[in-house]
């Protein structure tokens, strides 16, 4: 398979653009945040594209009003500001509203995890999974590649609920050759089957998990890799069937650990199933990173680099942990 590098946002927006040509019921709002493909929408749909300015709270509220009148709405902004500046607007107008009325609002946050590495901690988005999955009535989508992002467009129109879609900010190679409807709704995919240890990851960290698995394969160590992309709703039973063969799981996320993120999702399932599988959580500890550097450098500072992951796996295999 030829591995093409693309940004999730451009692939997603290009597909939205195609849908907007046929479907007059789609509005696209942004908080003064662009992308090359967004220029197509800006040019062609002047009545259904609105830049609300750097005003994420108003972005959510305007989106709500449009959705209450039946429009399918996309609200596009930088992920940490979209989710955290406007969190209460999301809680009141999306989460609460959606329990009483049908509203289709799709929050598209760009810059998941450490995408904006050198921009510092205001732009690092390492809380969004935990804070968004705690809200009732909102789905959370965390793709690892542009194939998933592209596939999610049709789903986002079909499923008339509020959704939070977290995109990486960097162009990334594709992981999935193709994803069909059933796979998308299943919410996760086992990319590599392994023995004893399985890496469970989301977003960018799935790229890292695959790299680690390949490095270990050269040493004849096979670890499983499961990419989780639909974090909420989550198909717990099907997921458990996929992991029950393993003795150890390692969750990998560009997010705080022990605070309701991916690790908490998985540990909750293991607890519900009374499973004896041992879980190792890898992500960020209870602090921000001010030091400037590339994503790899920041991962190293936070013990989330390939070497540390491999070391953890080897220790598990030795029975040291």
């Amino acid at each position, binding site marked *: 398979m030829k591995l093409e590098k693309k940004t999730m946002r451009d692939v997603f927006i290009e597909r939205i653009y195609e849908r907007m040509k046929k479907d007059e019921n789609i509005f696209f709002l942004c908080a003064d945040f662009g992308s090359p493909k967004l220029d197509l929408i800006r040019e062609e749909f002047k009545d259904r594209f*609105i830049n*609300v300015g750097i005003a994420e709270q108003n972005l959510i509220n*305007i989106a709500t*009003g449009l959705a209450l009148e039946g429009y399918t709405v996309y609200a596009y902004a930088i992920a940490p500001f979209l989710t955290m500046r406007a969190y209460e607007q999301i809680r009141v107008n999306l989460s609460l509203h959606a329990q*009483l009325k049908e509203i289709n609002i799709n929050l598209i946050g760009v810059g998941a995890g450490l995408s904006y590495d050198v921009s510092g901690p205001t732009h690092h988005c390492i809380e969004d999974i935990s804070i968004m999955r705690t809200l009732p009535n909102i789905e959370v989508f965390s793709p690892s590649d542009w194939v998933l992002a592209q596939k999610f467009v049709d789903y986002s129109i079909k499923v008339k609920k509020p959704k939070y879609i977290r995109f990486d900010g960097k162009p990334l190679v594709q992981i999935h050759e193709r994803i069909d409807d059933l796979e998308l709704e299943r919410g996760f995919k086992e990319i590599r089957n392994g023995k004893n240890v399985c890496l469970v990851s989301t977003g960018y960290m799935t790229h890292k998990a695959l790299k680690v698995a390949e490095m270990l394969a050269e040493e004849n160590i096979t670890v499983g890799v499961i990419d989780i992309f639909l974090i909420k709703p989550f198909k717990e039973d099907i997921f458990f069937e996929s992991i029950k063969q393993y003795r150890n799981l390692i969750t990998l996320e560009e997010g705080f650990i022990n605070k309701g993120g991916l690790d908490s999702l998985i540990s909750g399932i293991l607890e519900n199933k009374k499973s004896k599988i041992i879980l190792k959580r890898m992500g960020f500890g209870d602090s921000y990173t001010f030091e400037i550097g590339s994503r790899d450098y920041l991962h190293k500072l936070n013990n989330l680099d390939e070497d540390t992951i491999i070391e953890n796996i080897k220790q598990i295999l030795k029975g040291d942990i």
Partner: protein
Amino acid sequence: MLVEDSKKFSEFLRKKALCVRKETLNIHRMASETRIASSLSCVEIFVTMYYGKILNFDSSNISWVGRDRFIISKGHGAISLYPILADLGYFDKSELSRVCKEGSFLGGIPDSIVPGFETINGSLGHGLGVACGISLALRNKNRDEKVFVLLGDGELYEGSVWEAIMFAGEHKLDNLVVVLDYNKVCMLDYCKNILDMEPLEEKFKAFKWDVKIVDGHDVEQLYKFLLTMKEEKNNKPKLLIANTVKGKGVPRLETDSLSHVISLASNEIDEIIAGLQ
């Protein structure tokens, strides 16, 4: 409308307002958690909107596409709308005796679970932005329905309201009419002692709004202004600053800067109702 008819109509609205004020006090008697002072300042506004038929509505079909949208952004002060909605058939009048009681859908702050309410209320500063979205949607669909908002003055301290004010002016949302219940009292003090909002008229005008000022307890004037602003097409969102008195009709509330948090005792309510005219 003929002068004589107009007088009768105003008298009809005044009587309705008196009746709603009494019923609101009776609800408060049974549900002391309700914000009585906030709910009394907007009685005439609600009465004019509904009984004055400023709003197009159909209580038997609350999702009727042809209804004007009325967003009650100051949700905590909307208990006085309950008796109106019950009277107009949005829900049974017997529900009024269950406000804030177990299992009731009528709480201290109404949400869209209450027939007749469009949005989630209670957290201040959301209503205007949501109304802007509705307004845009209706304009985009070439619909003639209008979007009304009841805004509290204390809400103007929320930054999100000013994001929406800027947006509405820039996008020329002239199907949007905001009524500001300008009672000038917040929870802990008079607004002027917290952060003075004046000059409000000039502020809104600077944001490209059309602004009018009215006595918010004069139903005749409210009717005149609301009807004009509803029909006027001038490419501007409209603000009607309704000068009101917090706790209107209850002398000790009218003069207390802490009226927001005052609850009235049952025997006091008897006296107040007996004295209302």
